[in-house]
């Protein structure tokens, strides 16, 4: 658990970050909260001759709310999210999810950007961002660009972000209606055995629109359009929920690990989604 030697950089603005990335190419990686990258370096599974720490870049730290449009800087921590009363008011699912990530010590350091950008299938924010149809803001040598969270994840640790790009913020329209983030894990600090992010809008006692995304049940987060569609026009009765679960099960592709075999994960995914939908519906 001793990393190979590396140079440590701590630029004070994004221009500095981009310049370093340009200079060192594949030899450089940016560091946010460090909960993924530092263990990988200690295990010598990631060799990073140039580590670029983003801690000193103030522009990455803000949470801004403009009407229903929410923009969260990449270096905002889960702890910040949990304690941001205005954000909790407009998008309470952010707090509900953050409270289910690891433990307070991790949340003091763990950032939204690190959680979203890395493409780790175990992370909770990618599924949530897909559920919320968030936009990811990237900056690189050629300027800025935006990528939809639903288009960002390609495979485990493989994303639409180029090597010399940095995620600077995420933004989304705060959903109205009911919401839920439901997660089963073996213990505090563990990744999900299965987790579900659900938002539901209603009209006249029926679901008018919904969004459903699942965490750690494939090598990428799974936004299940078919599962959400199965709810639209229903009152979230048992049959509708069952249809949504079946649709979701067609979209996930879990693998066996120490959390259990595939059959167990698929079963739990169905239970967790059922509970998430039920809670979101109750809140809608």
């Amino acid at each position, binding site marked *: 658990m001793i990393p190979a030697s590396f140079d440590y950089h701590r630029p004070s603005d994004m221009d500095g970050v981009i310049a370093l990335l340009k200079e060192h190419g594949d030899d450089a990686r940016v560091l946010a909260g460090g909960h993924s990258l530092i263990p990988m370096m200690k295990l010598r599974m990631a060799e990073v001759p140039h580590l670029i720490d983003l801690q000193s870049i103030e522009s990455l730290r803000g949470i801004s709310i403009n009407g229903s449009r929410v923009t969260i800087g990449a270096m905002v921590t889960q702890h910040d999210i949990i304690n941001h009363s205005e954000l909790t008011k407009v998008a309470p699912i952010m707090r509900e999810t953050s409270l289910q990530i690891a433990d307070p010590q991790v949340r003091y350091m763990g950032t939204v950007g690190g959680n979203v950008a890395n493409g780790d299938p175990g992370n909770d924010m990618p599924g949530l961002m897909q559920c919320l149809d968030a936009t990811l803001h990237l900056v690189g040598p050629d300027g800025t660009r935006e990528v939809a969270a639903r288009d960002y994840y390609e495979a485990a640790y493989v994303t639409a972000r180029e090597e010399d790009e940095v995620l600077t913020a995420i933004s989304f329209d705060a959903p109205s209606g009911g919401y839920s983030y439901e997660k*089963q894990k073996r*213990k505090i600090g563990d990744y999900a055995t299965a987790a579900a992010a659900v938002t539901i809008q209603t009209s006249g006692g029926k679901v008018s629109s919904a969004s459903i995304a699942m965490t750690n049940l494939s090598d990428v987060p799974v936004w299940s359009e078919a599962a959400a569609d199965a709810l639209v026009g229903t009152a979230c009765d048992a049959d509708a929920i069952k249809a949504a679960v079946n649709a979701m099960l067609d979209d996930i592709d879990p693998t066996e690990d120490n959390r259990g075999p595939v059959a*167990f994960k698929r079963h739990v995914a169905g239970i967790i989604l059922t509970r998430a939908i039920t809670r979101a519906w109750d809140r809608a």
Partner: protein
Amino acid sequence: MKDLNEDQVARSANLKGMGCSRKRVEDARFTQGKGNYVDDVKLPGMLHGDFVRSPYAHARIKSIDTSKAMAVDGVIAVLTAADLAPLNLHWMPTLAGDKQMVLADGKVLFQGQEVAFVVAKDRFIAADAVELVEVDYEELPVIVNPFEALQSDVVLREDIADQKEGAHGPRKHHNHIFTWEAGEEAATNDVIDNAEVVATETMYYHRTHPCPLETCGSVASMDKVNGKLTVWGTFQAPHVVRTVASLLSGIEEHNIRVISPDIGGGFGNKVGVYPGYVCSIVASIVTGKPVKWIEDRMENLMSTAFARDYWMTGKIAATKDGKITGLHCHVTADHGAFDACADPTKFPAGFMNICTGSYDIPTAYLAVDGVYTNKAPGGVSYRCSFRVTEAVYFIERMIEVLAIELNMDAAELRRINFIKKDQFPYQSALGWEYDSGDYHTAWDKALKAVDYEGLRKEQAERVEAFKRGETRSLMGIGLSFFTEIVGAGPVKNCDILGMGMFDSCEIRIHPTGSAIARLGTISQGQGHATTFAQILASEIGLPADSITIEEGDTDTAPYGLGTYGSRSTPVAGAATALAGRKIRAKAQMIAAYLLEVHDDDLEWDIDRFVVKGAPERFKTMKEIAYAAYNQAIPGVEPGLEAVSYYDPPNMTYPFGAYVCVMDIDVDTGVQTIRRFYALDDCGTRINPMIIEGQVHGGLTEALAVALGQEIAYDDMGNVKTGTLMDFFLPTAWEVPNYETDHTVTPSPHHPIGAKGVGESPHVGGVPCFSNAVNDAFRAFGNRHTHMPHDHWRIWQTANKLGLHG
């Protein structure tokens, strides 16, 4: 005991002696980051060692090329077996009478095995150089299943392939280590063959690991000018380490000083001798510089001593109305690549023959077969006396299975089979003499405290509601009644590598009435500095706050066998009390002289000697201490010191009654512990607060083991649970609010009646949690499921029983 007057009450309270919840004196430094652990030892010019470890579970080593590593600036040496062979240190003896490779000698036998030891100027250079050592392996067939090992043509231990006789008798196969038996085989088979009812079950007690907060490590410093070797290390038995180091190295024992500094938890993991210790010592002797070795968490989990890994098959015989008549137990014990169990030498399966438990079972037989596999060596007693957790788990599961067979309540089945109070001292069928117990009183108290009948009623209602489809949650009631066997042990049958398992205490009273006492044990978090001072305070009448307790430095402490198996209070605690009594005996002579009366005219009164019938005439211990050093007393040597070596006449047998109430989500396998009640009887209670802390800690480790903690291997011998992501360590979040209770049944043979408590909650807790899970499914036909009961395995149980619709 007569009632104390107001003055006596005040003087007694001032001592903070036995029975007082004195705050832990250690915690001032621990809570402020001022502890002194082995990794805090920093010496001028100190070098750092790191291991090249095998990625394979079984492979031949064709070559090792160290040249690239040696070329790194700052690398001082790279040791391999070839370098250690001339010193005859490439192998070392284990505590179990086997031998173990220090560095891989021709082949590797488990993943994570030590292959080469890099020594460098700093820790980072050492880690870099480890990457550059090139080892050419030829993979060999891997065996991770002990039953397969006993059938396989693959020879794991080529070094002893032809040895028909092992350290503990004949070997049946080249992968077989020993067969150990206790009790009467023919008589037991006869009872079982003719019994009205027999219940049979096979249970796997999975491999796990003690995982102390602080990993293992050592710093060795060879002073070549003076010929002195000093070794700081994570040693639960520093004096034994010194003796072993002397025997191995040829350095005379007086020239070796072993120091166990503060230790961040042991739980059995720090009893054995590891290759890292040996390599740091050899490297220091070779380089003449201090060498530090500290393992990381993954190394700790992969390579240092594991616990359990017992396949146990039981047959229990009873009459139709539930009186147990016989017990048969066979164990296939997976010891990994080397037999490095840390047990008293004559007990290769520890005290597994306590497996008749708390029950009056007239006839019994136990046989244990030890087997080699391609897993890490070890077999330590993780927070229990030697293999007692396995034994108690076995009998407490067998009782539950028998209750199912008899269609009887498991609490009642226990009650009608308990050893009765008037049967103590009790001779068990497997050879132990239980010292004291009052099981019925403890059991009744426990069942009443939890409203056992009410719980069963609620459980039955829950089952009905479940069947009606009104709930998806089931309720389990876990019961366990355990008897521990601790305080090893009588020298006549307990030794480690020939060294009798006595322990010791040496006391010096200072002239102003304070004291230092040194013991042969070593605290790893148990709070010895607090509790042993309390024993002494009560014995010698000086305040505990005026008594320093010191352990762990072999140059200053008297010889002792260390701390494990809950032996500190039963053995060293007894030595402390007896040394204190020697002090008091001399103090009485001094007081008699000062008061100008005969010795027999004095009586002891809390902190002083008083002339009988004249309470105004007395000498306090403080006064006596001053006189001992400063007044010429005819016929009495100056000074006030004593030493006592205590060879216990018997083990002690703490016991307890535990109840766990658990809710289980049938759909997800998630268990929630609603309630956990723990009644412990550890005899005389020295510090109730520390006992309670021990119970909380031991129960939490029991919860971990029962509900998820394991060292799992795949078929290739790869460790699947090598980090804390997968190796379950519970946090405060997963732990319930424990309710603690007690009864007090003193040990009749111990000077203060104390029995030891540190491991009881683990021993009793594991079957209690496991029984709760199994009990939840009893109404649906479940008999037994293996631990660990993590979510997916519980889900699987429900699934197999058809509870998922």
